[in-house]
């Protein structure tokens, strides 16, 4: 496994990965100032963990047969960011976004499934509290046949915060036998919190599978009753339920330190 030495090989504002091995690295967003494009050459496999909250404008190009695990960990301030992923034939993208930041901003992510059998999976766990106003726009475009996308977003909105999950999954004409699924869930903790889910499907093709779902609301009353009926206090019951809601993201993060940090943050913020 090669690591962040790769960052020293930047030419023309492009960071290029090529070769047969698995690249695994942690990048600080501040280091991305000099990078406009990240390119994964044919068949390469890369794991990137992005930390330290700075605004990002980035385009990532995945050539044929590449595999990218892209993890973003926001813990202090949210910024307006715009990230685009272009996926060519047979390439795969897993995005895992752990967001515990404060502030007001829009994070825009676009995934273009340009090549046949390109796949992506998006997972977001986000906590909004106090006066946070955060929007996550996730656009996934199916240009080619047999492309697949699954988008799962889980959020918690507390106090007087506002959390918006929006995004369009667009299946263009010709993207036959594609599959697209959007799932947006936000748990609301107070009357002053605002939760909005806008999952939109734009379908211009007949031969495909598409679905979307959105769940917005307070902690499920029956779940809360069940836990409390066993002697668990209301606060502890809510904590258990919300932990259960947000922690599936932990399984997707290999870095032990970061995983612990996220777990602590979830506990602190609930």
């Amino acid at each position, binding site marked *: 496994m090669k690591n962040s030495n790769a960052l020293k090989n930047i030419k023309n504002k492009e960071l290029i990965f090529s070769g047969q091995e698995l690249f695994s690295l942690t990048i600080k967003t501040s280091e991305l100032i000099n990078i406009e494009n990240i390119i994964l050459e044919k068949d390469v496999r890369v794991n990137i963990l992005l930390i330290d909250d700075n605004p990002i404008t980035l385009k990532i190009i995945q050539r044929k047969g590449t595999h990218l695990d892209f993890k973003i960990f926001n813990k202090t301030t949210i910024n307006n960011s715009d990230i685009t992923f272009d996926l060519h034939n047979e390439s795969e993208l897993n995005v895992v976004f752990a967001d515990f930041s404060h502030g007001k901003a829009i994070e825009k992510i676009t995934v273009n499934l340009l090549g046949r059998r390109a796949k992506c999976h998006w997972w977001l766990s986000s906590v909004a509290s106090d006066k946070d106003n955060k929007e996550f726009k996730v656009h996934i475009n199916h240009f080619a046949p047999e492309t697949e996308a699954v988008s799962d977003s889980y959020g918690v909105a507390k106090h007087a915060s506002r959390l918006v999950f929006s995004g369009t999954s667009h299946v263009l004409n010709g993207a036959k036998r594609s599959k697209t699924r959007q799932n947006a869930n936000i748990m609301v903790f107070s009357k002053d919190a605002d939760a909005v889910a806008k999952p939109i499907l734009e379908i211009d093709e007949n031969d495909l599978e598409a679905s*979307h*779902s*959105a*769940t917005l609301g307070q902690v*499920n*009353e*029956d*779940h809360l*009753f*069940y*836990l*409390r*009926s*066993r*002697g*668990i*206090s*209301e606060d*502890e*019951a809510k904590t*258990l*339920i919300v*932990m*259960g*809601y*947000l*922690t*599936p993201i932990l399984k997707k993060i290999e870095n032990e330190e970061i995983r612990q940090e996220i777990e602590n943050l979830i506990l602190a913020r609930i």
Partner: protein
Amino acid sequence: MHKLIIEGLHVSVEGMEILKGVDLVISEGETVALLGPNGHGKSTLLNVIMGHPKYTITKGTIKVDDKDLTCLGPDERSLAGIFLAMQYPAEVPGVINADFFKAAINARREKPISLYQFYRLLDSTSKQLGMPLDLANRSLNEGFSGGEKKRNEILQMMILNPTFALLDEIDSGLDVDAIQLVAEAIRKEQRPDRAFLIISHYARLFDLVPPTRTIVMINGRIVLEGGPELIQRIDKTGYEFLKVDYGIDIEKETTSMNEMSIGICAAKETIKNEK
């Protein structure tokens, strides 16, 4: 001698009165069979005793000895010794069984239970009920069959040691072998210092777990009390005899809400258990 005392209890849900003056005293050592046609308030009574927030008590009290539970939350009632094995146990995604059991156990302890003691307790209890070995790591009730969910309720009862165990149709959805298993577990849990209040529609369960007293609920009131022979009579001839022999009207007093059907996307959680 501990007693669960319900006096003059009137309960409404969504503006409709379901319990219309229930008086009931259950003492330690009793096993009370609660019978009655569907929709007449049996399950409501058990859920109200446990403190489900969707029910409003408009009159009356629920007490354990001198302690008035009427305004207390379900967690406080649990600590006062009440346990409800639910008719439809909730599936709570992401909440791991082990964390859930530990939290419930620790709520009653001064010092948190040691990991070793906890796993020993969970292991031996779940073996008795034939529960799967990987139970501890799974999400609460998720992926459990109906029968497994019911056995998980009994498992929790065995771990939490309640004084008043309320069982809401614990045998529904169980096959013959599972009923045997559950009945044996209940029998083992019967003690002079514990009381059971059991709802069931099937005489079979009461053959295996003979009650000390039988009560019948019609239209939100307890209309008749008797011994185990009442169960046999109802099992053979239904509830008609109440009208004939006792002049008790068994027609439902109010029309129940129609079952709702919501067909568009989402609405996943709301359709269950509308009565």
